[in-house]
C-alpha cells in the first residue's frame, strides 16, 4: 500500500538515539529508517523498551539535549528537524505535527478547562482572537463526538470520562490541522468498546484531513485495524516492515511470528498451550550482540556459523518490505509454514 509515486511527508533515516545514564549508555534507538506519506497510517509495534516511544519523542524534538545523543536525519516535509532550533520546533509542534498520548488525564492540565486548553493551542499558532478560538474549540469538540460541546467546553478534565478525555486530547492535537499526528498507545488505557470508538474517530478524521499518522501500540489487533504499513521494533531496531497484510499475514521475522503466536484469538483452538516467546526483552544498556533477538529465537541454531550471535542482520528493504534475519528465504518458507495453518480458521 506504500505509494512510491508520492513524496514522503516524513522521512527518518538511520536514526540513533542514545542516552547517557549513570550505568552506561542506553541505545534506545539504533539505526531506524522509515518513510510516511500523507493520508497513511504507519503502525509501530513493539514491547516495552523496544524504542518505539523514544523514536517519536525524537521526531517531536522532546529530548533533553544534554543527556541525549541523536544521530541520523529526520525530514518533515523536506525540512531537517534534528538541526532545527527550539523555536522552530515549537512552531512546528501543534501546528504541523502533533501528538496524543496514552494517559489523557496526565496530558491535560487539571487547572484549566478543556476549552481553554484547546483554544490556547489554536491562538498560539494562528493568532486568532479569544472569541474565534473558543468557537474553534467547540467546533473541534463537536467533531470528535463530545455531546453538547458548547456546554462541555467549560468543563475541567476531571469532569470528563476516560473516553471523553481521549477525545478532548485528539481535539487539541488536531485543532491546527496538523499534517502529522503521532499517537502513542492512544487506546491502551481504554475499554474495548471505547477503543473501537476512538479508532473509528481517528480513521474518519484522517480521511477528512489527509493526516499522516504514526500509531504506536503493543497490540497487533489494533494494528490490524488502523494501520496501512507496519514496522516491528525489537531492542531499538526495526526487525520487520511491510504492509499490514504482508507483516501480519505472512511474517518473515521470527519475532513477529512469535508475537502472533503468543496471542490467543477469539476463534482459535482452546485448551492447547499458546506458543510464547521464551525469555524477556533485552536490556538496552547491554544488548545482545549480533541479532538482538537471538537469545530468544528458536531458529538461531538453524543459521550456520553462529552468525546470529556475532553479526547484525541487515534490513534490506525492497518496495517497503523487509526483515532483518539471517535465515534464508527458503528456510523461512519451510519453518514458518505452520503459521498460516494455525492462524487461518
Amino acid at each position, binding site marked *: 500500500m506504500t505509494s512510491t509515486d508520492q513524496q514522503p511527508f516524513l522521512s527518518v533515516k538511520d536514526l540513533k538515539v542514545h542516552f547517557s545514564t549513570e550505568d552506561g549508555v542506553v541505545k534506545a534507538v539504533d539505526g531506524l529508517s522509515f518513510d510516511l506519506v500523507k493520508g497513511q497510517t504507519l503502525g509501530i509495534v513493539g*514491547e*516495552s523498551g523496544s524504542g518505539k516511544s523514544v523514536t517519536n519523542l525524537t521526531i517531536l524534538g522532546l529530548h533533553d539535549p544534554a543527556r541525549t545523543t541523536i544521530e541520523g536525519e529526520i525530514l518533515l516535509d523536506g525540512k531537517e528537524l534534528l538541526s532545527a532550533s527550539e523555536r522552530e520546533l515549537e512552531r512546528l509542534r501543534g501546528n504541523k505535527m502533533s501528538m496524543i498520548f496514552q494517559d489523557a488525564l496526565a496530558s491535560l492540565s487539571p487547572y484549566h478547562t478543556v476549552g481553554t486548553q484547546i483554544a490556547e493551542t489554536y491562538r498560539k499558532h494562528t493568532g486568532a482572537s479569544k472569541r474565534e478560538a473558543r468557537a474553534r474549540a467547540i467546533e473541534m469538540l463537536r467533531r470528535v*463526538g463530545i*455531546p453538547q460541546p458548547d456546554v462541555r467546553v467549560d468543563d475541567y478534565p476531571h469532569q470528563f*470520562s*476516560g*473516553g*471523553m478525555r481521549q477525545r478532548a486530547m485528539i481535539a487539541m492535537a488536531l485543532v491546527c490541522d496538523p499534517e502529522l499526528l503521532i499517537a502513542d498507545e492512544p487506546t491502551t488505557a481504554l*475499554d*474495548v*468498546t*471505547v*477503543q*473501537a*470508538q476512538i*479508532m*473509528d474517530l481517528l480513521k474518519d478524521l484522517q480521511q477528512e484531513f489527509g493526516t499522516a499518522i504514526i500509531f504506536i501500540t*503493543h*497490540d*497487533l*489487533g*489494533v*494494528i*490490524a*485495524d488502523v494501520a496501512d504499513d507496519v514496522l516491528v521494533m525489537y531492542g531499538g531496531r526495526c526487525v520487520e516492515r511491510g504492509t*499490514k*497484510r504482508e507483516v*501480519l*499475514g505472512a511474517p518473515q521475522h521470527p519475532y513477529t511470528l*512469535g*508475537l*502472533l*503466536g*503468543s*496471542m*490467543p*484469538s*477469539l*476463534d*482459535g483452538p*482452546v*485448551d492447547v*498451550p*499458546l*506458543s*510464547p*516467546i*521464551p525469555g*524477556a*526483552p533485552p536490556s538496552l544498556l547491554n544488548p545482545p550482540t549480533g541479532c538482538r533477538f537471538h537469545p*530468544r529465537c528458536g531458529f538461531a541454531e538453524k543459521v550456520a556459523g553462529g552468525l546470529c550471535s556475532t553479526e547484525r542482520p541487515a534490513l534490506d528493504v525492497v518496495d517497503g518490505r523487509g526483515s532483518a534475519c539471517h535465515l534464508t528465504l527458503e528456510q523461512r518458507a519451510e519453518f514458518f509454514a505452520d503459521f498460516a495453518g494455525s*492462524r*487461518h*480458521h
Partner: protein
Amino acid sequence: MSNTNPLLDVSGLTKHFPIKGGFPIRRTVGAVQAVDGLDFQVNEGESLGLVGESGCGKSTTGRLITRLLEPTAGTVRYRGQDITHASRRELAPVRSEIQMIFQDPYASLNPRQTVGKIISGPMEINDINPAGGREKRVRELLEIVGLNPEHYNRFPHEFSGGQRQRIGVARALALEPKLIVADEPVSALDVSIQAQVVNLLQKVQQELGIAFVFIAHDLAIVRHFSQRVAVMYLGRIVEIADREDLYGNPRHPYTRALLSAVPEATVDEDAPARERIRLVGDVPSPINPPTGCRFRTRCWKATEKCATEAPPLVQAEGNKPGHLTACHYPETADPIPAPRLAKNTEAAA
C-alpha cells in the same frame, strides 16, 4: 449450571461502598453500587472467567469471594459453608484453600523479602510444616512455576515482570489451594510474556485440578483459559455460559457488542468481514445506575420495558442449559438491522 455440590456458591452477592459527605457530621449520602446481586457457582477444578469493562465490578467480586471485602448483602458459600460474614478465626482454614493472584507483579511482592521468604510466608502464617521442611517445598514450587530453585535467596527487584508474576503464582500454590482468584494476572505484562504466564496457569489448573475465578478484560485470553465465562456490566452479570456458547452464540446485546469491538490480528481477505457494533457513549456511573436494565442507555434495542423492569438472569429461549442471559430481547444469530446501527452512530456524532 447448578451442580449439586459446587465448590463456590454465590447468591445475591452485593457490595455497596458508602459515599460520605456533609459537614460537620459526615453521613452517608449515597453508595457506589459496585456489585449488585450476583449469582454464580464455581465447580471443583473448573475455571470461570469474569469479563467486563473497567468499573463493572469484576475485581470487587474477586475481593468479595476471598473475603478481603465483606459483602453488603447476599451469601458466599465455600464447600457449603457460609463464609459471608465469617470472623477472621472462622475464615482461617478457608483462606488457606482460597488464594489470590494480583495484577501488578511489582506491587504485590514485598521488596524487602527474599523470594524464599515471600513464598514460604503463607506456610508460616498457617503454621504448616511440610515434610522435608519449608525450604524444600519452596524450591519445589519454584520449579513448578518455571523458576530456578537457586533463586531462593534473591529479591523481587532482581526479576523481570513475567518472573515476578511466576513468584506470585508460586506463593498462591504454597498452601495447595482448591480455588485461585486471579485478578488480571497478565494484563501488566508484555505480549510475549503474557503467553508464558497463561500457559503456566493453564498447566497449574489442569495438573493440580485447581478451580479458578479468572478476572480479565481481554476476551481472547479469557476464552483461552476459562471453560465457563460470565460477562459483567455495571455490577451485574448480563450473561453466563460455557465458552463455546458465549462466544459462538452471544444472546445479550452487550456481549455481542463487546465481542465485535475486540480488534483481531488477522488480515485474511477471504474471511467474512467481522460484525462491527459500535456502542454509543460511556458506561454510566455506578452511583446512580440506570433503572431496569443497566445496559439500556447504550442498547439499540431498549424499550419502555427495559427502563422499568430489570431483566432476570435466566435461560432464554433457544439457550442451552446453563446458558443464562439477562435481557428482555435476547439476540439471535441474525445480523443487526443496519438502520438501527446507523441511528446508533448518528446519536454519537
